[in-house]
């Protein structure tokens, strides 16, 4: 169980922002190749990248409601849209009167 602070990996400062982009797959072409080749020869950046791959997925709290939830979601929203329609009709009638 984790209850003490582990030392975090230290990447080259000027590559940190791009390493985040590389993690998310937002670097392409020559930029991606150049950084990947740097990472291959840099222990700090390689460790940083691997740490992102381990830590960032922990932040996602998955919630996958079942089909009933989605059915109710749509039904409830249709009722709210009906109310909105009704309100619009009443408002326009009120304005016309």
């Amino acid at each position, binding site marked *: *169980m*984790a*209850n*003490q*602070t*582990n*030392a*975090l*990996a230290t990447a080259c400062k000027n590559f*940190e*922002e791009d390493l*985040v*982009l590389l993690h*998310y797959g*937002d670097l392409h072409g020559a930029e991606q190749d150049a950084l990947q080749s740097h990472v291959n020869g840099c222990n700090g950046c390689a460790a940083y990248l691997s*740490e*992102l791959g*381990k*830590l*960032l997925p*922990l*932040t*996602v*709290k*998955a*919630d*996958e*409601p*079942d089909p009933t939830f*989605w*059915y109710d*979601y*749509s*039904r*409830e*929203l*249709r*009722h*709210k*849209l*009906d109310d*909105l*329609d009704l309100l619009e009709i009443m408002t326009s009638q009120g304005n016309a009167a």
Partner: protein
Amino acid sequence: MTPLEPAESHLSFRRPLPSISGAVKSQDRSPLVNPRDEELVASAQKGERRAFEELVERHKQKAYHIAFGFARDREDAKDLSQDAFLKAFANLKNFDGRSSFYTWFYRILVNLCLDYKRRQKRAPADEFDETVEHQMDPSHEPKTARTPDQHVLAGQISRKVGSALEALPAKQRTVFILRNHQGLSIKEIAETMETAEGTVKVHLHRAVTALRQSLAEFA
């Protein structure tokens, strides 16, 4: 369509939309059977409720998950995402098509989520973890049985992540949720937040840096 019709018939278009005319034909898509968002918006702007309901069906899951990323509470996420659809519906006549529907819609949603967070900050202490744990349907728990230690660790991580996300400035949190949780591209996030891609990258890097520090013990 009347509200009395069976709900199933509202869920998605089973038949071609008669109101969509002049749709652009493409080789890999039949526009009449599977209209683009823009075509549905055009129909909805002419008063076709079913077209809007189809947009809801297309985007509701992603909208809900974005809202859940902010609220981390099922009921609030549902309300927030539904409110975004209602607001979009009410303002549809103002949508001019300069951006895609989903960019426009997600902008509405993100603004509602940010308002929600602002209101929450003014409210008494947030019961983040307990709320989430209680509202999670047990049927959505991981199928593999957890040991007591794993349960404790999961709770510990959940609390840490919750407070770390709460501590992020609003723009950093927004960028992080849209990229990390929802997989929107940097370009899409920039359009949604009406900011430059470079700014999005800076926010993302800062958010990741802050979260790494908060979660260091799990590295």
